C-alpha cells in the first residue's frame, strides 16, 4: 500500500506526539509532579499509529493500562490528556479517570483499561454493535503479551470467531509483562500460534517498523470491513521505559534499552526510510518535531494552571445518569 505524503506526515506527527508526550510524562513523574501508576508507550509508537491509520472516529479501539499511545493515535486531544494526567477538572475525563482510564468515546477511543484482559470482551461488543447496526465499522483491541494469557482474552478470540465479528486483535508483544518474560508466560512463546486455534488468520509483525504494521493492519481491517471476521496480529517490539514509572528494570539485560533506542527506534527507522526514499525531507520531519515540542510544553503549562475538580461538586456526580 502506497502512503500519500499527507498520510506519511500524519503518521510521523502521531508517532512524534506519542514519543514527546511520553518523554515529558516520564520527566514529570520523576520530579514527583504526576502521581499514580503511569505506563509509557515510548518505543511502541508504530503499533498504535500503524493500526489506527486505518480507522476513523466511528471505528473503535480499546486499549490497556499502557494507553497514551493508543489515545493519541486515535486522535484524542493531547491537552485534554495532559490535563487528565494532572487530575484536572478539564481533563478529558474530568480528572476522574487518570492515566489508566483515559478515554474519549467521541473519538472511538473506548478507554485505557487497568484490568489486564478487560478490553477484549468490550471490543467484541463494539464490533457487534458495528455488525448489528451495519455501519461498516470495525473494532480493534490492543492487548499485551501478558494480557494474552488472561481468560477473558481467549474467550473473546473464540467469540469473535464464532460471531464473525469485524474485530482485530492486536497483541503488542513487548517481551515483558511487568518483569516477566513473554517467552516464559506465553506457552510456546508466540502469540500468533494461537490464531489457528480460533480459526482466524494470524500475522506476526516487526513492531519497530511502521510500514510493516501499517500493511498487516490494513489487510486485517479490510478483511473485517468485508465481513470476513477477526484477525490476530502479534506485534513484536520493546518498550523504552520500565513497566511503569518507578520500575528499576533489573530484569532486563544490561544495555538492552540503550541498544533498542539506538538500533530499533521506530521514529528513527521511519525517518530513515522516508528520507532515503525521498518521500519526505528531514526538514518536513524537523518541523513536526518542533511543532510537537511546543504542543506538549504548552499542554503541560496549561495543565499546571488549570483548576482542580471541586470535591463538593464533582465527587458524587457521574455515577449514574439518573438514580
Amino acid at each position: 500500500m502506497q502512503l500519500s505524503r499527507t498520510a506519511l506526515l500524519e503518521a510521523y506527527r502521531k508517532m512524534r506526539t506519542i514519543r514527546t508526550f511520553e518523554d515529558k510524562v516520564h520527566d514529570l513523574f520523576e520530579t514527583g509532579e504526576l502521581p499514580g501508576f503511569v505506563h509509557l508507550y515510548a518505543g511502541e509508537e508504530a503499533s498504535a499509529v500503524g493500526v489506527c491509520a486505518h480507522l476513523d472516529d466511528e471505528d473503535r479501539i480499546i486499549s490497556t493500562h499502557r494507553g497514551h499511545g493508543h489515545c493519541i493515535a486515535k486522535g484524542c486531544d493531547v491537552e485534554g490528556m495532559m490535563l487528565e494526567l494532572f487530575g484536572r477538572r478539564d481533563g478529558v475525563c474530568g480528572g476522574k479517570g487518570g492515566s489508566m482510564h483515559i478515554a474519549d468515546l467521541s473519538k472511538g477511543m473506548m478507554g485505557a483499561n487497568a484490568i489486564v484482559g478487560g478490553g477484549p470482551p468490550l471490543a467484541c461488543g463494539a464490533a457487534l454493535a458495528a455488525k448489528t447496526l451495519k455501519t461498516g465499522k470495525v473494532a480493534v483491541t490492543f492487548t499485551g503479551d501478558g494480557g494474552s494469557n488472561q481468560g477473558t482474552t481467549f474467550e473473546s478470540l473464540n467469540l469473535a470467531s464464532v460471531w464473525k465479528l469485524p474485530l482485530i486483535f492486536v497483541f503488542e508483544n513487548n517481551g515483558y509483562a511487568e518483569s516477566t518474560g513473554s517467552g516464559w508466560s506465553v506457552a510456546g512463546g508466540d502469540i500468533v500460534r494461537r490464531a489457528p486455534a480460533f480459526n482466524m488468520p494470524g500475522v506476526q509483525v516487526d513492531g519497530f517498523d511502521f510500514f510493516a504494521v501499517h500493511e498487516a493492519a490494513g489487510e486485517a481491517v479490510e478483511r473485517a470491513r468485508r465481513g470476513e471476521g477477526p484477525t490476530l496480529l502479534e506485534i513484536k517490539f520493546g518498550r523504552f521505559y520500565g513497566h511503569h514509572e518507578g520500575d528499576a528494570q533489573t530484569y532486563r539485560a544490561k544495555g538492552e534499552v540503550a541498544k533498542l533506542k539506538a538500533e530499533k527506534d521506530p521514529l528513527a527507522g521511519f525517518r530513515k526510510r522516508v528520507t532515503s526514499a525521498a518521500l519526505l525531507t528531514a526538514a518536513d520531519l524537523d518541523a513536526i518535531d518542533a511543532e510537537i515540542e511546543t504542543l506538549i510544553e504548552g499542554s503541560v503549562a496549561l495543565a499546571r494552571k488549570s483548576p482542580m475538580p471541586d470535591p463538593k461538586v464533582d465527587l458524587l456526580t457521574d455515577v449514574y445518569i439518573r438514580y
Partner: protein
Amino acid sequence: MARILTYREALREALRQVLEEDPTVIVMGEDIAGGLGAPGELDAWGGDMGVTKGLFGQFGPERILDTPISESAYIGAAVGAATCGLRPIAELMFVDFMGVCFDQLLNQGAKFRYMFGGKAKTPVVIRTQYGAGYRTAAQHSQSLYPLFAHVPGLKVVIPSTAYDAKGLLISSVRDDDPVVFFEHKVLYDEARDHVPEAPYAIPFGEANFVREGEDVTIVAIGRMVHVAKRAADKLAQEKIEVELIDPRTISPLDEDSILESVEKTGRLVVVDEAHPRCGMAADIAALVADKAFKSLKAPVKCVTAPHTPVPFSPVLEDAFIPSDMAVAAAARTVMA
C-alpha cells in the same frame, strides 16, 4: 377481566415488547434460542427456563444471539455494545456464575460513566436467575444480589410478582445505566398475577406497599415477599398488623418509604434470602438504625438464610430458606 400471566410469561412479553419498540435492543446468552450448530430444531430451548422461547423466530439471529459458554466475553460484549449504540440484554443463566465474569460489570460497565468523566452511557441489562428451592445445590441456588448492590454504578432490580417483572424489565431496558435484573427461579411458575398487555414501566426506587399496617414493618425482597405475606396473614389472626414493603429495586433503594413506615410502626423485620453478612437485610437494618432510630421501639430483626452454602438435600434446603414461621416469630419478638 384480569389477565393472568406467570412470571415467565410476563418476562417474555416484556422482552418481546422492548424488542418491538426499539430496534437497538438485542438479547444474548447461552441457549437463549438453542440449537445453533445442531442438526435439529432452532430455538430448541428458548433459555434454560424457557423465558426467551419464541423470540428467535420473531426477531431472528441478528437480534437474538446465542453464545458459547464464555460469560466474560459475552457479558463484556453486551457492556461494550451498550456504549456503542445498542441496548443489549444479556442473560447470565444463574447468578452463581458471576464469579467467571464479574469484572465486566464491577470494573467495566459500572465504572465507565464515572471514570470517563460522565461521558459514557451504558444501557445494558443483565438478566439472571437466583434463589434456592429448586434442589440445585450450592453452585446454582445463591441470592448474590448484595454483591451487586455494593457496587456503585450498577442498579439492581428484584421483582417479586409477574406484574412487577414485566414493568421493571421494561424500565430496565429503557434505563440508560447498567442494570442487573434478578429473577427467582421458583417464581417462574409460582408467581402468577394480573399483567396488563400494553407495555408499562415501573419506576426504580419506588417500593411497593404490599400491605399496610400499624404494628410492625416488614421489608422483604424478591421471593421473600411471598413468605412474608404468609407470615403477615398469620400475624393478622393474632391482631398484629404488618406493613409489608417490597423495595422492588435494591439499588436505588426507596429509603423514604422504609423510613416512613418505621416511623409509623416503630418496629422492623427484614426478610432476605441472601446470606446475612454484608447482605441486604443488614443494609436496611443499618439504614433504619441511623435514620429512624428515634422511632424504633424494639431491636431490628433480620430473617435471612444462614451463613452456609445452599445444601442439596431437600430437607436441608427447606430449612435454609427463611420460612413464614421464622418471619412471624421475629415479628412477635419485636412486638413483645
